[in-house]
C-alpha cells in the first residue's frame, strides 16, 4: 500500500496518489492547477464576505480575522491556506498526501507565512477545535463522505462556521466537469473526478445536519467563458459552496 494513503483511512489510496502526482505544479498559476488558481478568487471573496458577516468583522482591513482559528481540510499545496492566513486566520492545514503537505510547508516558508501543516485526515486531530473549518473540493474524493463530514464537524467549535465546496451530481456537472474540463479542455488530468461521487446539495446539507451543523446558505459558482473568470451564481447545477453553523 502506498505510504501516503495509509495515513488516512477516510481517503482512498488511488485518490491520494493521483493528487500527489500532480503536486509539484501546485503553485504554478499557468501550470496544471491553473483552473484552481482561476477558481480561488471567487471562493476567497465568498469566504471573506460570509466570515466577516458571521464574526462581525470590518471588511476593509487586509487581515480582518486576527484572533480566529481555521482548519483547512484537504489543503493540498496550500492554495487556500496561505490566502486565509494572510487574511489573519491562524491556519492549520491538513492533507492526506504527505508530499502535498511538504510542498505547502516549503511554499509558506518561502512566502514568510506561518501555517501549521500536518499530514492526515480530520480524525488525526482529536481534541483540537477551530472557529472555522473548510473543506473545498474534497468530499467528492473521499470514500465515505458522511463519516468524513462527521469527523470534520468534530473539529468545529460550537457556533463555528463550516464551509464546503464540491460538485453537484447532475448531468450538467458531468458534462462540464468530467467531459468538458478533463477530456475536452484538458484543464484537469483525466480521471480527476468520478461523477458518481459528486454530492447533491441536499445530501451535503443532510450530512451536515447529522453532524449538528445547520446549513444557512448554498451558492453556485460558474465559469464565464467570455470574461475568463469565475463568478458567484444562484445556479447550483455544477459547482457550489455550502455554509453552515454548528449548534451551540
Amino acid at each position, binding site marked *: 500500500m502506498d505510504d501516503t494513503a495509509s495515513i488516512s483511512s477516510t481517503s482512498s489510496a488511488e485518490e491520494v496518489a493521483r493528487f500527489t502526482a500532480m503536486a509539484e505544479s501546485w503553485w504554478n498559476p499557468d501550470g496544471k492547477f491553473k483552473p484552481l488558481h482561476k477558481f480561488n*478568487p471567487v471562493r*476567497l471573496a465568498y469566504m471573506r464576505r460570509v466570515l466577516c458577516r458571521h464574526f462581525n468583522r470590518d471588511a*476593509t*482591513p*487586509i487581515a480582518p480575522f486576527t484572533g480566529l482559528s481555521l482548519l483547512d481540510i484537504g489543503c493540498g499545496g496550500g492554495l487556500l491556506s*496561505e*490566502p486565509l492566513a494572510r487574511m489573519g486566520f491562524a491556519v492549520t492545514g491538513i492533507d492526506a498526501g504527505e508530499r502535498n503537505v511538504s510542498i505547502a510547508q516549503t511554499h509558506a516558508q*518561502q512566502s*514568510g507565512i506561518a501555517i501549521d501543516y500536518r499530514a492526515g485526515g480530520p480524525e488525526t486531530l482529536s481534541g483540537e477545535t477551530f472557529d472555522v473549518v473548510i473543506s473545498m473540493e474534497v468530499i467528492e474524493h473521499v470514500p465515505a463522505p458522511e463519516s468524513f463530514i462527521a469527523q470534520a464537524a468534530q473539529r468545529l467549535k460550537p457556533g463555528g462556521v463550516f464551509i464546503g465546496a464540491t460538485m453537484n451530481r447532475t448531468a450538467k456537472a458531468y458534462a462540464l466537469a468530467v467531459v468538458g474540463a478533463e477530456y475536452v479542455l484538458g484543464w484537469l488530468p483525466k480521471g480527476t473526478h468520478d461523477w458518481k461521487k459528486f454530492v447533491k446539495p441536499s445530501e451535503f446539507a443532510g450530512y451536515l445536519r447529522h453532524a449538528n451543523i445547520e446549513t444557512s446558505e448554498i451558492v453556485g459558482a460558474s465559469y464565464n467563458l467570455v*470574461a475568463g473568470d469565475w463568478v458567484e451564481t444562484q445556479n447550483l447545477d455544477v459547482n457550489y459552496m455550502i455554509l453552515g453553523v454548528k449548534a451551540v
Partner: protein
Amino acid sequence: MERVDVLVIGAGPVGALTAALMAQAGVRVMVIEAGEPQILSAPASDGRAIALALSAKRSLDVGGFWTHLSPFAEAILDIQVTDGNAPVLLHYDHRHVGDNPFGWIVENEEIKSAALKRLKELGIAVKSSTIVESWEFTASAAKATLSNGERIEAGLVVAADGRPSPTRQAAGIKIKGWDYGQSAIVCAIGHEKPHNNVAYEHFLPSGPFAILPMTATQTGYRSGIVWTEKRHLGTAIMAQEDAYFLGELSEKVGDFLGQITLAGPRFAYPLTFQMAERTIDSRLALVGDAAHGMHPIAGQGLNLGIRDAAALAQVVVEGARLGQDVGGTAVLERYQRWRRFDTGMMMGVTDGLNHLFSNRNPLLTAARDIGLLAVAHCPPAKRLFSRHAMGVVGDLPRPLQGLPL
C-alpha cells in the same frame, strides 16, 4: 532581512501616489528614492506647469495629496485654441460640459512636495539617496540589495523611477520610441492683467505654444508657458539673455495679459516619446514615466501616471484582501490588462500628434488638436471613451472616481 508587501522605487508624484493609496488600505509599503534628502524636503522648480484632469485630481484627493495641493492649484475654466495668427478657432467653456473645471494647473514641485508631506503623514519613511544595487527574484519574493547595504524582501516591486527607469532596464524591458526633434521651453511668467482662468493653446508652424493659468502670488498674476521649437532653435533661444528672451516671448504671448515678466527660471526639455514594451514582469509593475513618456503638449504624462497608480493600487489592495500574493501573476495581469487600452490609445494619439505636428496643413492640424483637446480636457468624452474600453474588465479605478479603495 526586512520584508514588505510592496517596494516602490522612486518618490516622484506617481511613485508617491501609488505608495499612499496602498498604505492607506493597509498594505506594507517601502519607498526608496535616488534623490537627496534636501531636494526631497524642498523640491526645486523644474518649470513644469502640470495640467491635471478631473479624474487625476480626484485620485490625488483620495490619496490625501489634494489638501496640500489645492492652495497651489488654479482651475481652468475656458480653453481657447488658435491656429497660427488666425482669430480664435475654438472656444471651450467649462459650463458646456458640466459644473467642474476642465482641469487644474499646478506646478510640478508643488505636487512633489505635497506627495512627500502625505507620505510623512502616513508614516512612510522615504529612504533618500538610495538606489537598488542588485536584484534577486525567487518564486515567492523579489530581493533587493540597497546602496546602503540593507537587504529588502518584497512581494511586489513598483518601478516609478521616471523615464530612464533603471529598474525597467535591469528587468530587461525594452522601450519603443522616437525623438520629435523638438524642445519644450517652459517657464512661469508674471503679468499685469488677470488670466481669467483661460488656457490658451496656439498652434504655430514651429510647434504648439501654450499659456496656462497659474495661481497668483503676492507679486501678482502668473501663467505657465510651454513653448515648443525645433531643437536647434530651442537651444539658441535658451542661450539668450533674459531681456532678449522676454522680448521674443512677449511677441508670442501678445498683449492681452498686459506687460509680462519672467517669474522663475526657464528650462528646456528635449521632446521624445517612449513606451515600455510591457508594463509587468516577474514581481514587477511599471508606473508613470517609467512605463511611458509622451509629448508634454498633450498634457497627459502625469495624468496617465496617476491612472497607473490608481489601477495598480486597486488591484493590489483587492488582491491583498483576498489573501492573494500581491506580486503574483493574477494581480499583475489584471493591472496590465486594465491599463493596456488606455496607454495604447494614448500612444496612438501621440503618434498621430507626431505626424500632424510636422504637417503644416492648418486644417489637419486643427482637426487633430481639437480631437486631442476634446479627449484630454472634456471629461464626458473621455469618460465615454474609457468606459467603453474598460467595460470588459470593470469600471474606472475607484480613486479616479473619487472613491477610496
